[in-house]
């Protein structure tokens, strides 16, 4: 039993280890170790395409995770206090957003936004003083941020609502009995209690957005995120540079994830 568990852990971590090992390869080959070197990290970090893609990925991940966390938490708090058709509609939307495959979300956002933009662009051109200079709506970082924020918001709503459901109602009642305003109660009672879940939601959202390939593949327009860059370079041929990028990406996710896990666990314990 112990041996079995040990071999499953090996199965889970050996491939990751191999990627990391070969990122320190001194030679050009991605399959034969020729001594230890960190030069591929230097190559990756001085490649302008990698750095551009990294910047795009970080901007998208930070913005969409932030929007998803704020809007998702607001919605979760409101949904806690209502019932009826609005609540049902939101439950359904959250369910749909999580259940529909990412690839279908990507496709739908692509053709949905292109169709809407095609309707709006002539209108903007018509009212703009100089028709040739009129701004044109097109796919890019904005559409990617919006698509990620929508999906991640559903995730945040689920995580925060799970935490809200476990909260003692008497606390908010006590707060309002003691004449705190609704907003005061939220800031001083509710928010500190749900904060671990909110922060974990943010970290998970960031990680998801940073690692997402399929939605970005459809929606990013002419922008390139890091996973999209890695995918297209793998198609061109494998070099230790990809291993170096991969190792850095894995390291960032691992650090954030351990943080999120610790927060969720601390949050799950009664903290009074």
């Amino acid at each position: 039993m112990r041996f079995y568990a040990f071999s499953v852990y090996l199965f889970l971590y050996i491939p990751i280890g191999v990627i990391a090992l070969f990122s320190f390869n001194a030679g050009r080959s991605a399959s034969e170790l020729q001594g230890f070197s960190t030069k591929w990290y230097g190559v990756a970090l001085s490649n302008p395409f990698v750095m551009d893609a990294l910047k795009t990925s970080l901007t998208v991940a930070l913005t969409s995770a932030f929007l998803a966390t704020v809007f998702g938490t607001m919605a979760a708090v409101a949904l806690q206090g209502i019932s009826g058709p609005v609540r049902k509609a939101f439950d359904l939307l959250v369910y749909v957003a999580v259940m529909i495959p990412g690839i279908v979300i990507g496709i739908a956002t692509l053709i949905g936004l292109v169709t809407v933009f095609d309707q709006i662009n002539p209108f903007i051109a018509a009212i703009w003083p100089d028709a040739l200079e009129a701004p044109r709506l097109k796919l890019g970082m904005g559409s990617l941020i919006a698509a990620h924020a929508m999906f991640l918001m559903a995730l945040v709503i689920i995580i925060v609502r799970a935490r809200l459901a476990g909260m003692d109602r008497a606390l908010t009642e006590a707060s309002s009995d003691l004449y705190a305003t609704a907003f005061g109660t939220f800031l001083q009672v509710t928010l500190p209690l749900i904060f671990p879940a909110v922060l974990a939601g943010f970290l998970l959202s960031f990680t998801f957005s940073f690692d997402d390939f399929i939605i970005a593949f459809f929606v990013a327009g002419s922008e390139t995120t890091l996973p999209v860059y890695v995918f297209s370079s793998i198609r061109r041929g494998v070099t230790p540079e990809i291993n170096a990028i991969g190792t850095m990406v894995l390291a960032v996710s691992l650090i954030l994830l351990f943080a999120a896990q610790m927060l969720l666990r601390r949050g799950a314990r009664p903290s009074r």
Partner: protein
Amino acid sequence: MSIRTRNWLLLAPAGTLFLALLIVPLTVVLVFSFGERAPAGGVVPAFTLEQYANLPARWTAFKNTLTLAPIGTLAALLIAYPLAYFLAVRVDPRWKTILLILVIVPFWTSILIRSYAWMFLLGGRGLPAALEWIGIEGVRLINTPFAVLVGIIYGYLPLMVFPIYVSLDRLDKRLLEASSDLGSPPWRTFLQVTLPLSVPGIATGCMLVFILLMGEFLIPAMLGGGKVFFVGNALVDLFLQSRNWAYGSAVAVALVVVMLITVTAYMRLLNRLGARRDDVAIM
């Protein structure tokens, strides 16, 4: 400000985002699937079932998905169950948390990089080279259904372990003691007590993995090398290469419908088996 107004204000941004990026886009897909392909690559609005009538042209993609997704789910279950059992019942409580985190964490790291790792390991100079060294020659692993299956198991094992672990961890250990006190051999305790009580976890795990597999693109793209392809790969081809939006929309709608039918049938089956549905978070 009344509570009603406050709630509306709190829900407004989420509602707008859902409307603009979920409801409208999905409606466009549905509308386009009944349209006709425009010569320039767009869609001419129409009401025709032509695109749906053409679905059999992509039958191989559906067949591959509907074969490898259930096989992959089952394989992941068989590998995950003993591990989940070990973590829930056998492990020293001090090590439980860290061992569990070590299982879950890979799921939340880049599936692209993790599939790349297997491209590396199964490729010509990875495992096949090692096999050659011990005398087994001519083994080709990459770009086969086997490679895709390995990628699937590797990618989704953590998602299977977690819900099973949760249901086994909740299980009252006194039941196991009672069973053995009453003279049941361990295998019988397992079959008659442990296994039935972990059905909710198994059900949740299988459903999560199956749903995600139905929309998979990266694993077949990287480990199947164009020979083993899923509906996801057909969709990328239709939207990004041949730019046939009307037909692509019909394939996307068909994928979601097939998914809904399978999941509903599965839930019905579970209800008939009398399993209680436990809500387990995605984490």
